[in-house]
């Protein structure tokens, strides 16, 4: 009945509930099987395993976390700092965190095996009726054998016994050097292998996750950046972006008469808009006018400012008659001001998504996406925008991105040729025109999907009491 052949039946999976991870894993980790997480120091192996158990325990799936290295109290503290109430889950008996340090000081007097560990694990799991097991840093135990061949034989034997018992096992193993995988045989034994790594390029750290293999299942094949956010791991794979558009007729205006008329009443709610123009052309002022107009008693706006702080921004707007003070005070306008260099692209993206999830804004303004270029290559800026828009669309958040382009008319038109312009639904361009007497500001609508719009250049200027936009034929006499 299904289009898949009989051999393609999907294996049973456990959804991890870790944002983005299940998309990469096409549903989750394999149930009743073994998954290995391999990564260097600081890549978050332990955290990923802990978050998995924590989220399962919350859903009533019991699990035991056995750490062969870190002390249980340290793990509890780390988990609690991520907001995981592991103490409660342990008290309820849905989670157990156990420290089982490798017996380093023991003297060796002949052959031995890992049966003791098996008995201990079974004991812990029986006690809380657990089916999920994390073995964190198992390599420190097997190093006791002091011989690679013995290590392999005993670990293989031990893991086969766990597998026979139908447990879902997550192993973490250290990678001592990036790209070097210490336990190749574990990769063969595991049904699913996840590699974590972190690199620093041009002083910016990026962490990446890659599924090396997943027996019996599809998975997304690329490397995906991930972030250790303050509540857990987040991955935002670009490949899972769905392009489902929805039709809307609701419009959000700027409360600038002529500009709104150019837009047939305003921008379409839920669309992505690029506001592009050279430095000083008034992008921020127009964006703030939009923010102000979109703030209604029951509508919030999130303004991400990469260029200036909240106080500076409010002061600048006050000087042109666009006071934001009341909407900031009422909480309808939330200004998130951050230095692009303070974080990597992924961290910024996750921060914005977290704010979107807590504020539920009607509109998001990012001023300016071009600042993100300081954090990485042009491809990464595009990837940031694609994923941000993809997160805005299903939430029906109108997303305005300001973008700094060169100052000439020709450059402004070239905006349409950039990657960014093709990603958004609407594009408003600002530019300067030099008539040999003075510099004039111009505004025009380059495109607007799903709506009619003006095709004329308009002049615009910023006065003490606001912005005025005029058709060129009727330039107001005050504009001399």
């Amino acid at each position: 009945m299904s289009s898949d052949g009989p051999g393609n039946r999907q294996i049973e999976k456990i959804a991890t509930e870790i944002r983005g991870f299940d998309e990469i894993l096409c549903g989750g980790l394999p149930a009743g099987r073994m998954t290995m997480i391999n990564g260097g120091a600081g890549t978050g192996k332990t955290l990923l395993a802990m978050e998995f158990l924590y989220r399962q325990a919350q859903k009533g799936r019991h699990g035991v976390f056995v750490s062969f290295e870190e002390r249980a109290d340290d793990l509890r503290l780390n988990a609690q700092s991520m907001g995981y109430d592991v103490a409660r889950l342990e008290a309820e008996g849905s989670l157990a965190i156990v420290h089982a340090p490798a017996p380093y000081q023991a003297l060796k007097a002949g052959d031995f095996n890992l049966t003791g560990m098996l008995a201990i694990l079974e004991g812990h799991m029986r006690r809380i009726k657990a089916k999920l097991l994390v073995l964190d840093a198992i390599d420190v135990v097997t190093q006791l054998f002091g011989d690679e061949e013995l290590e392999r034989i005993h670990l293989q034997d031990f893991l086969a016994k766990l597998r026979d018992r139908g447990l879902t096992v997550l192993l973490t193993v250290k990678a001592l050097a990036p790209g070097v995988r210490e336990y190749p045989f574990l990769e063969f034994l595991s049904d699913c292998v996840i590699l974590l790594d972190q690199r620093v390029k041009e002083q910016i750290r990026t962490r990446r996750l890659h599924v090396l293999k997943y027996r019996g299942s599809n998975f997304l094949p690329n490397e995906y950046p991930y972030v250790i956010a303050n509540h857990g791991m987040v991955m935002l794979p670009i490949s899972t972006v769905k392009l489902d558009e929805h039709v809307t007729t609701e419009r959000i205006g700027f409360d600038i008469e002529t500009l709104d008329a150019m837009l047939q009443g305003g921008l379409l709610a839920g669309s992505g808009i690029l506001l592009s123009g050279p430095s000083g052309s008034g992008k921020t002022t127009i964006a703030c006018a939009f923010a102000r107009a979109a703030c209604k008693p029951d509508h919030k706006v999130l303004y991400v400012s990469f260029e200036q702080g909240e106080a500076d921004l409010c002061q600048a707007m006050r000087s042109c008659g666009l006071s934001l003070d009341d909407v900031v005070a009422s909480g309808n306008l939330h200004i998130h001001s951050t230095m692009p260099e303070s974080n990597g692209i992924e961290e910024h993206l996750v921060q914005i998504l977290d704010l979107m999830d807590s504020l539920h804004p009607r509109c998001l303004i990012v001023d300016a996406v071009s600042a993100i270029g300081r954090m990485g290559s042009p491809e990464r800026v595009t990837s940031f925008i694609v994923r941000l828009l993809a997160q805005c669309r299903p939430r029906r958040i109108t997303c305005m991105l300001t973008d700094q382009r060169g100052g000439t008319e020709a450059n402004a038109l070239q905006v349409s040729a950039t990657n960014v312009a093709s990603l958004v639904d609407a594009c408003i361009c600002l530019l300067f025109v030099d008539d040999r007497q003075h510099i004039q500001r111009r505004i025009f609508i380059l495109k607007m999907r799903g709506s009619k719009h003006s095709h004329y250049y308009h002049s615009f200027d910023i006065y003490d009491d606001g912005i005025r936009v005029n058709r060129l034929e009727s330039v107001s006499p005050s504009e001399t």
Partner: protein
Amino acid sequence: MNKDEQPKYSFLLFVASGEANSLLAEQNLRRLIDDHLAGHSDLQVIDVFQEVDSAINHNILVTPCLIVRRPLPQVMLVGNLSDKKQVLTALRLSAGGPSEP
């Protein structure tokens, strides 16, 4: 031996019953006791599957595993105890001929 005194040597041997190394460890230990420590030791053999709590409390990750509780300081030996020299060292008995306990 003075009946009021505890034996000088006290052993906990953790085994996985049925496994060859565990059987060997117990044999090796009993022989060593007979040869060197007759009347001066007590031995408790614990199956990790039968007495899981005890295995957990002593954090027995590998079997067989011998804990020498006395004399102090406590020592842990892993393996089937075939390395007699290592065992005697751990018991602070010379590896040569029998010494007085």
